[in-house]
């Protein structure tokens, strides 16, 4: 018990939670935007990989870190555009296209990476984002180092949660996006083309996925290598349901997931005899439990996964 208390009260643990959560927050916001406008985006796993690769490659070739982030976002948006073109005007099946994008974007990233960095004997590195100690605030006991001693993209992610929550709930554009996810006929009837609205929103959401990937190579670590996204994208897809499509809850979900991850890593060092696989399973199983609990309450965007073609019966 004492050990558990030690883990739970250590600054390092909570700092790790926020750090592990960052790509999940960004990715979840990305999926959330896409789903809010009515399109499932299972391309996230591949788009994150591409963002991770492209952002890293830019920085490796001399760009500064923020340029790397922007390049990653643009790369994400480009794949978002591809997903959008296939699923919105063409109305192709969203799961299948998403999986196709994931297969394509990840293998494409590995290929391009290998062309750009042909024979590396250990992963070449860049100088990543350093934790930014925010003066004064980071001196607050416990909370200070946990929250105010993170890298800049983590702050960006937190700001984005607020911005997207505001954007969706308080701006005309957000209203239109939500309506397109509920009933595209309705936005169309109000004179807004749901096709363009969907395409734009998916691109924005995918840009966030690109950022989520870039966080892995530009802040969480300092190099790119194949398979590094390791299913984080799929977790984001689950977190959106967990969050009932609300940005603030997405933050909560990402933190919870990160908590389990950070906790199991620390528990492993002190508790013996429990297979590590059980710890690794925990977050997934808990997500499923959370889905069961949330299912009754969740307000699914009603047009999710329903393609909209004007004038089709």
């Amino acid at each position, binding site marked *: 018990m004492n050990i558990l208390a030690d883990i739970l009260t250590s600054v390092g643990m909570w700092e790790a939670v926020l750090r592990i959560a960052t790509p999940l927050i960004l990715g979840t916001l990305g999926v959330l935007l896409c789903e809010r406008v009515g399109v499932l985006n299972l391309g996230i796993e591949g788009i994150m990989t591409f963002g991770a690769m492209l952002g890293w490659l830019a920085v490796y070739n001399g760009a500064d870190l923020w340029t790397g982030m922007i390049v990653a976002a643009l790369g994400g948006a480009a794949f978002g555009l591809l997903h959008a073109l296939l699923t919105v005007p063409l109305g192709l099946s969203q799961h299948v296209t998403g999986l196709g994008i994931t297969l394509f974007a990840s293998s494409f990233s590995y290929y391009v990476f290998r062309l750009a960095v042909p024979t590396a004997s250990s992963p070449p590195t860049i100088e990543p984002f350093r934790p930014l100690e925010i003066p004064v605030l980071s001196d607050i006991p416990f909370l200070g180092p946990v929250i105010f001693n993170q890298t800049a993209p983590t702050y960006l992610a937190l700001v984005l949660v607020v911005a997207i929550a505001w954007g969706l709930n308080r701006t*005309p554009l957000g*209203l239109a996006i*939500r309506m397109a996810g509920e009933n595209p*006929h309705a936005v169309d*009837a*109000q*004179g807004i083309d749901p096709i363009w609205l969907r395409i734009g929103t998916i691109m924005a959401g995918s840009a966030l996925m690109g950022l989520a990937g870039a966080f892995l190579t530009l802040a969480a670590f300092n190099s790119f290598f194949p398979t590094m996204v390791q299913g984080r994208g799929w977790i984001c897809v689950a977190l959106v349901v967990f969050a009932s499509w609300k940005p603030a809850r997405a933050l909560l979900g990402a933190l919870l997931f990160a908590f389990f991850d950070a906790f199991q890593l620390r528990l492993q060092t002190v508790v013996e005899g429990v297979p590590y696989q059980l710890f690794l399973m925990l977050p997934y199983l808990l997500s499923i439990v959370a889905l069961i609990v949330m299912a009754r309450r969740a307000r699914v*965007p009603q047009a999710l996964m329903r393609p909209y073609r*004007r004038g089709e019966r």
Partner: protein
Amino acid sequence: MTRVLDLSNITKRFGHVTANEDVSLHLEKGEIVALLGENGAGKTTLMSILFGHYTADEGEVRVNGTPLPPGKSRAAIRAGVGMVHQHFALAPNLTVLENVMTGTESLWSLRSNRSAGRAKLVALSEKFGLKVDPDARVSDLSVGECQRVEILKALYNDARILILDEPTAVLTAQEAESLFATLRQMTADGLSLIFISHKLHEVMSASDRVVVLRRGSVVAERATGETSKEELAELMVGRKVERPKRPPATPGKVLLEGLDLTLSGKGGASLHGVSFRLRAGETLGIIGVSGNGQTTLAGLVSGLYPPDAGTLLIDGRAVTTHDVPHAIAAGIGRIPEDRNAEGTIGDMTTWENTVLERIWSPEFSSRGMVRRAAARAATDQIIDRYDVRGASADGRIRLLSGGNMQKLILGRVLEAGPDILVAAQPSRGLDEGAIAGVHERLLEARGRGAGVLLISEDLDEVIGLSDRIRAIVNGRLSPAIPADRANAQLLGLMMAGDWSAAAEIEAETQMPEHKKAETEDAL
């Protein structure tokens, strides 16, 4: 008079279907034009072109003399055209205010001005007597309220020309009346209206001018004062239509009996101790305001769910297994309330839709294998006998118009020769010609000795077809009155829950049900 709207020479094709051909239509300021036509005549298409939802293949739309760019709803809205769609264009999980405000502000502004929006909405809703709660979630609203939201949406966009596509199809008589009162108030305010309806009495009472479409073309235009229901019906269908007359009934034995049926509705209205009897060769009409339990009652009798308490007897035997195959096997034919959502599966073929509910019968399958040839033959026969136009056994049923879909459903039900027919809203959304056809089939079934349970919101229909009429209110059934004693006022009272007059009539016209049962037993 100033001309506010001009559609000239509109032609629109979908594949090889010509939905509109060389249609011209105009509208004066302050005028109400009714657009009339059979199912599939092209009314919605025409209005969709006007609203910029579809692009016409040929022709032009002018508002106040200025041509509208084709295919741009936004331009139509800016020009002051508002449309209330046949199928509501509302987002169920958003509030009324959100639904109304979407698209009305610059998309790039950083803040939506809700208080101004709310003020405008409240003002409009007060001015035109369209009461709705701005903060209610649309999914919690009734159809009538949704209708109001749709109209408010158009008004919020400062519409000067309002198009209403079958606004009353799902409204009750009272709601429809108050809607027309509102519409008249709008014309007084300088708005101009086009509405589509299949209900001729509405057309006669509410419009200034009538335009009749048939097979995509304008076949007639009349000032309302100079025409009659009969003439309009004939113009629409191209031949004389008359609703068939009900011959006197010769009721036989009790086929279907409900005893104290109780069912708590999950997500719908409940039934509380409902008892009724249906005899061979008679039609029992059940009227009521929607949301009072009609759907639940129809579903219960159709075998969709079992009662919580009470007994259903078919041919004197209590039903023990309440499911669809048993209901059908026991001789119940079912006409569903919503043919698109419940009656057919749009992406399946006509033959699959025809045989699905009886796929278990040896006629259509043996040892788990579908007898496809038999199923196709049966379908072809129905298409032929029931004149289902545009259908082929292997075509997707989605492509059929409402009336033809209903004919197919009637065919698949009646060909099985049911003893009991449960018909829920059998002519909802259908045109005069189609309605006459449906009524004829229902009377035919009754004539050959079937018992018909007719559940409908259309009073004319109920009076025209039923032998006895009961109202359903809050899940309870009123006393039964004979159809020849029925009139709009009495039925209105019954639907409102005032049953004293009905009880008197029941007592005076026939023995109460329980006494009658005793005499029967004695015989």
